[in-house]
C-alpha cells in the first residue's frame, strides 16, 4: 500500500465536545496503516495535550493518558502552534511530556511535541496529501 502524508488538524478543547476523543481514536487506528502521520494542535486544540487533566469531577473518562501511547505507535510528529499557546497563557512546560524511542538513534527517548510557529505549520500543511479535521 502506498504511503501518504496524513495530517490531523485539532482545533477544539477536550470534553466540551467529543471531537478530541474521536480524533485520537482515528489516529490510533491510523497507526496500523503505516502512513506518514502528523498531528497539529492549534487554537483550543492545544488544550487536548495539557498536562494534569483530571476528569473526576465531570463523570467523563480522562482520555489524555492515551496520548502517551502515540510514541509506541511511531506517531511522533506532534506540532503545536506557538502563537496558540502564547495567546492562552501556556508554554511547552504546561503540556504532557510525550516521547518516543528513536530507532535510528539507539532507541533514545525523544520528545514528540514540537512547538512551531504558524509559518512553520503553514509549510507542514502544504506538504500533506490528506488533512483530516475534527
Amino acid at each position, binding site marked *: 500500500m502506498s504511503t501518504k502524508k496524513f495530517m490531523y*488538524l485539532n*482545533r477544539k478543547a477536550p470534553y466540551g465536545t467529543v471531537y478530541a476523543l474521536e480524533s485520537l481514536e482515528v489516529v490510533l487506528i491510523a497507526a496500523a496503516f503505516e502512513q506518514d502521520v502528523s498531528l497539529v494542535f492549534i*487554537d483550543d486544540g492545544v488544550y487536548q495535550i495539557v498536562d494534569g487533566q483530571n476528569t473526576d469531577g465531570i463523570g467523563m473518562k480522562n482520555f489524555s493518558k492515551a496520548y502517551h501511547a502515540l510514541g509506541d505507535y511511531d506517531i511522533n510528529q506532534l506540532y503545536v502552534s506557538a502563537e496558540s499557546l502564547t495567546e492562552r497563557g501556556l508554554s511547552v512546560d504546561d503540556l504532557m511530556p510525550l516521547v518516543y524511542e528513536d530507532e535510528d538513534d539507539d532507541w533514545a527517548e525523544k520528545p514528540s511535541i514540537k512547538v512551531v510557529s504558524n*509559518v512553520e*505549520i*503553514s509549510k507542514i*500543511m*502544504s506538504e500533506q496529501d490528506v*488533512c483530516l479535521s475534527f
Partner: protein
Amino acid sequence: MLHTINKSSFERNSLQSCLNTIDDTSVILLIEDGVICAANNANSSMLAELATQGRVFALQGDIDARGISSKVADNIKLVDYAGFVDLVVEHGTTVSWV
C-alpha cells in the same frame, strides 16, 4: 491547497486561524455560514488583500440563501457546487477549518 471556511468570522476564529497559516498560493472557499465573511461588514478587511489576488471564493447558493447577494465584497468570486468540485480538483489537498 484549498481551505474551506464554514463559520462566520463574528462567531468563530476559523477564518483568522486559516489566514494565520495560509501560504502564498492557497485559495479560500467560503461555504455555509462562512459566506458571512464574504459580505461587506466590519470584518471585510480580513479578506480584502487575498480577494484582490483572486484567491477568495464563496458558494453562491449559501450567499443567496442568507440574502446577502447584494452585499458581497469586491473581488470575491462566486461559485456553484460544480465550481466547488473544480476547486477541490485543481488545488490539491483540502483543509477544512471545521
